């Protein structure tokens, strides 16, 4: 399910407390701080395409980088799930192959 890009940006920078890593424009890289022992999260978001929706391909890729399901990430972007839910989920099951 595509997600509005501005909504996704607000969620990454607000809900998830993503800290932007300065890299070559137009790439938007974020580090999401997580408590130990969870492995830190680094995600690339296409926020330079502000007038497009975030596509399913991109959402799936970001979700895999975060160790959560696509559905869970969509819920963070568009719905009630927040940073605490993310941490709880990662403590329960981190789907990253680390």
């Amino acid at each position, binding site marked *: 399910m595509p997600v509005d890009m501005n909504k996704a940006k607000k969620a990454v920078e607000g809900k998830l407390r993503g800290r932007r890593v300065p890299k070559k424009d137009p790439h938007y890289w974020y580090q999401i701080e997580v408590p130990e022992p969870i492995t*830190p999260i680094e995600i*690339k978001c296409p926020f330079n395409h502000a007038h497009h929706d975030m596509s399913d391909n991109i959402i799936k890729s970001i979700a895999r980088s975060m160790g959560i399901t696509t559905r869970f990430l969509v819920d963070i972007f568009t719905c009630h799930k927040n940073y605490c839910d993310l941490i709880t989920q990662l403590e329960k099951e981190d789907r990253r192959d*680390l």
Partner: protein
Amino acid sequence: MLATTFNSRYYPLEGFDSSNVVRSRWIPKTATTEGFRSIPVQSDLPRSYNSFVLQAIIGKDTHLSEGLLLQKQLPINIKLEPNGDYFVEDEIFSIYGIGENISEALEDFTVSLSEYFTIVEESLQNDQRNLRKFEKLTEYINR
């Protein structure tokens, strides 16, 4: 092997510059007589953007940005975006790149992969939790 079911008809991809492919050492897994200059397309495919998936590999010794080198071949998937752009994603690190054509998407992908490598590398200065991730990265990428 291709993830989707294609018939035996092959058409050159419009606007696809094979010289870029050679330069980026992009090698498809599919052993077709057309090699990597063509992408197999069924006459009625792709009916929708998400039906197009091409599996390929980026070859060993491909130069990435920031002075990095791919030291092991990396499997990738090439897909279509709803707006017609190409989406390239690797199967190991879930890094992606996007472009108006495959060459642009590959270039965006390799830049992103290099950036990811340096971000993880730099994070180790303050936090060792990314060590396993970095070790996995250095199986594929090095200076």
